[in-house]
């Protein structure tokens, strides 16, 4: 599986409150989350999400367990998130909603540059350099391939 997109560079410790603020949670309308994604971090970011690969710092997605955070990113058109480390609930949620996430340190990020990555082979390529990433487990890849845990479950029936 090889995925690609344009780089969007973010810092460390981006918490789920910053990904989607608590005030937008009381709806089932996923477009609302996509429209307001990262609003409290930088209101200009939402418009750059279509086709983006987010290259973030350590501990991406820390804080609350809200699944609206990875759903907002996926709905906004993000192709994947790459970070040296993720908060564990966010990581699990992302796979469960079909958003590819890859643990990889040492990627140099330059905004809007092309990035490609492979969650199963375990590598990220950005700025002409290839970095080794932690490959996802077999079950996680299987869930991702189905588009998320709900679809995976339906396929198991």
């Amino acid at each position, binding site marked *: 599986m090889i995925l690609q997109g344009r780089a969007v560079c973010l810092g460390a410790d981006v918490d789920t409150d910053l990904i989607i603020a608590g005030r937008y949670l009381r709806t089932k309308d996923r477009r609302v989350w996509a429209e307001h994604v990262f609003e409290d971090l930088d209101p200009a970011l939402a418009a750059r999400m279509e086709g983006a690969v987010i290259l973030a710092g350590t501990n991406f997605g820390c804080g609350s367990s809200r*699944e609206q955070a990875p759903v907002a990113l996926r709905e906004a058109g993000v192709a994947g998130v790459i970070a040296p*480390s993720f908060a564990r609930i966010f990581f699990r949620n992302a796979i469960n909603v079909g958003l590819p996430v890859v643990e990889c340190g040492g990627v140099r990020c330059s905004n809007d540059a092309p990035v490609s990555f492979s969650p199963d082979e375990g590598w990220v390529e950005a700025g002409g350099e290839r970095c080794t990433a932690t490959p996802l487990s077999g079950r996680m890849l299987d869930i991702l391939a189905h588009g998320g845990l709900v679809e995976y479950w339906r396929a198991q029936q």
Partner: protein
Amino acid sequence: MSTLAERILGAPAGSFVDRPVDRAFVHDGTGVLTLEAWRRMERDRLACPERLSILFDHIAPANNSTTAALQAELRTFAAEQGLHFSDVGGGICHQLMSEGIVRPGEVVVGADSHTCTLGAFGAFATGVGATDMAAIWASGSTWFRVPATIGVHLDGTLQGAAEAKDIALDYVRRIGMDGGTYMALEFLGEGVRDLSMESRLTIANMAVETGAKAGMFYADDTTARSLAAYGIHTAPQAIEACHYDREITLDLDDLVPLVAAPHRVDNGRPVAEFEGIALDEVFVGTCTNGRHSDLARVAAIVAGRKVAVRTIVVPASRAVLLRAAQSGVLTTLIEAGCTIGPPGCGPCLGAHMGVLGEGEVGLSTANRNFRNRMGVGADYYLCSPATAAASALRGAITAPEGSA
């Protein structure tokens, strides 16, 4: 020899295991998505309705009709399925699960990150997202990667005005906001013996602020006594020599009241360094510090005086509110000018009942001070109930009396 997490999950650190869960709960926020995902899984029945709870706390009572409609759907579902349900005014999910439900040795999952609170009972308790929870509704079990453990040794005894919250702020600053990612924290040592169940809940609550999956205490006589009050009889868990990935030691004798400055939970430093910062609001409550002992501590400090700034007190549950009414704590707080909110999360998640305005400064007994969380453009600091009370009286950050 195993850590407590390895013992409960029945496998060594690093293994992936599938385990049935003993308790699983959602709240009004995460319940909506869980129900939606569960319906999309097209299962016709819940695998283990007797182990599931739906507990309204996040925006309860509802703040507008959209929220009310979402809650109505969950309320109806809980009634149809005969689930354990707590409606508005019942209190915070973690607190309710601590009032005679969770037992030592259980596997507990909650669709909320602070589920780690319940590790105070010697349970393996961790937060999951809504879709994971839906799969648990459908199957009764889930997968875990058995975490490695950081041993957190508590030496000595708390002195002066230092409290359990200061222990929590201290270990979070030492481990850092991602120093515990994928791991469990185990609290050990002579310092544990003197900690009440309420203190242990406060300490376990903040494990997730280091990124940890769980924060655990071994069940002992204190645990047994606290559960006996609910008619539950349990045995202590023996501590085995085991391998910790890392160990840290906190010297409680030297601990002073701390404040975590915006916008990082691991920013804890002695209150003295922030002394005099003017406040617009003080908030006492949450799953960290909204229990009776917390309210009683605040009441003892403000008794007979008036708060100098708006001070919002939100009891963690109806039982806490009732006890505060019976003990006179509530009267003292009201006479001192505090505003009492209904049991629940209050303004903690920035949705209602005390959200801060742009440029305002708040002091809170909660567990997170992330940018914009409790009010867009606001700054807020985290502290213990004693520090909150002393600061409310002056309208500025103030070290509680008895601080070194």
